[in-house]
């Protein structure tokens, strides 16, 4: 049981939002010590594993070009192209963004973000479409559309990213499994992420279209009643 102390340290460290790197290191060292390894042995295992898994951090080589492209307006260009889309309902706008976001994640394009894309672009487009077809929205419906707009960013990002062969997730799986004695190829892992990405996209679209239908039935049945009370 005492060997689980490292797991406990990780849980507590993350729960109290302590420095992540330090928490992981302390957990590893303590676990090694209670597992009857000496300090130098622990540091040797740590150092060897770190050198063996350098491939997990080679995304560093992409940073200069990504930084350069962002300086020259990559995100602004993407936003401009998305804003030209002409779609009639909130659900359709969110569905299209879901596809774009998933594909972008799958090819490792850093397009997206709640601050960069959802708040200035996707949410206003979705809200605009919804109020165009349904009139003034009630607070609860605006709240729901915000929830969906925030969620689409996460869905696309999470389930699309591991389709990229050198994504952080794929390399984590490769690195961890090889340290545990199961060497695998990154490409095999990336391919296995494709069905999940497709299914997540479909499920998300169902959720968005569901919202459209709910909104339509709510505001079309209410509209005549409003007119009556106005007379």
């Amino acid at each position: 049981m005492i060997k689980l102390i490292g797991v406990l340290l990780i849980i507590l460290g993350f729960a109290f939002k302590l420095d992540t790197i330090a928490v992981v290191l302390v957990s590893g060292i303590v676990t090694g010590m209670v597992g009857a390894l000496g300090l130098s042995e622990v540091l040797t295992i740590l150092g060897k594993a770190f050198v063996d898994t350098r491939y997990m951090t080679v995304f560093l080589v992409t940073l200069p070009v990504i930084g350069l492209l962002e300086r020259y307006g990559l995100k602004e260009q993407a936003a401009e192209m998305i804003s030209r889309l002409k779609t009639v309902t909130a659900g359709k706008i969110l569905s299209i963004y879901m596809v774009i976001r998933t594909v972008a994640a799958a090819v490792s394009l850093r397009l997206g973000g709640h601050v960069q894309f959802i708040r200035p672009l996707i949410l206003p487009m979705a809200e605009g479409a919804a109020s165009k077809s349904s009139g003034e929205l009630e607070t609860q419906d605006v709240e729901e559309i915000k929830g969906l707009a925030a969620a689409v960013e996460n869905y696309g990002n999470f389930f699309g990213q591991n389709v990229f062969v050198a994504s952080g997730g794929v390399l984590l799986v490769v690195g961890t499994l090889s340290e545990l004695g199961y060497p695998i190829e990154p490409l095999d892992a990336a391919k296995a992420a494709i069905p999940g990405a497709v299914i997540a996209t479909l499920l998300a679209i169902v959720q968005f279209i569901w919202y459209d239908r709910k909104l339509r039935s709510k505001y079309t049945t209410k509209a005549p009643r409003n007119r009556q009370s106005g007379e």
Partner: protein
Amino acid sequence: MQNTLLQGLYVLSGLVSLFTAISALTDAKHPARLGTALFWSLLGLIFIFGELIPSLLVGVMILIMGVLTALNRVSFGSMTGASDDFRLQQAKRIGAWLFIPALSIAVFAFGIAQFTTLGGLVGLGIGAVVATVLALAITKAPAKTAINDGSRLLQQIGSASILPQLLAALGALFNAAGVGQVIAEGISAVIPSHNVIFGVIAYAVGMALFTIIMGNAFAAFAVITAGIGVPFVLSQGANPAVAGILALTAGYCGTLMTPMAANFNVVPAAVLEMRDKNGVMKTQVPIALAMLVIHIVLILVLAF
């Protein structure tokens, strides 16, 4: 051939890290100049020299890096990105051409992984070099700008960039100390140990639950794979690449449901000015639960 190219890739990555150290060191307004420079220098040296440094010494270097982050001595400096006006103006001038270098990274990574024996990582490296050359040609920016922007981004990402590697190392330590066996013994008291279906359910649900508790699927993966994945799923003959990646995304289902993943769930609710700060999570719960069930089915179907 593949090894030589990989070594070259490590050297390039190390150089990005060393340039970051230099840019921190020469940044007079940097709030943690020396600590930040030391952190990225150590990482750069480990990347470039790797196996040439004794493992024990690498361990000590990592320990120093951990002390630096724990004391908050690794931070972002005073470098700034381009102004909004500049970015908009450049986006208009260059147009959709900007996507070509961005996409070439993925095209090379996938193409080289699929059609050669060099692997996706070498592809990523070649793609990055090609993309950098293309981007410099398209934007007509001086090479120094790319180096500065790389350093700026790496400082922004900060020490979190080495977290996946540390978690893999943690997995190695857990393995050496026998943590997996302890968890496995505990679980086998609850579920039959040779039942593939129960094993897969325990692996996927364990990933989601642990991620909910920790807010980080990457950290959960090291622990749960050692404790549940290996003894209950991989040792039963599952395809490790398939089961592993799907277990990780089963963990992401947990990420969608936890306030511990504040960046994804709580901060966006504030950014969008929602009344209910749990509103994002509530929206995500049905999809997250459905995807968790689907992941269990996918592992059972695709990995066996």
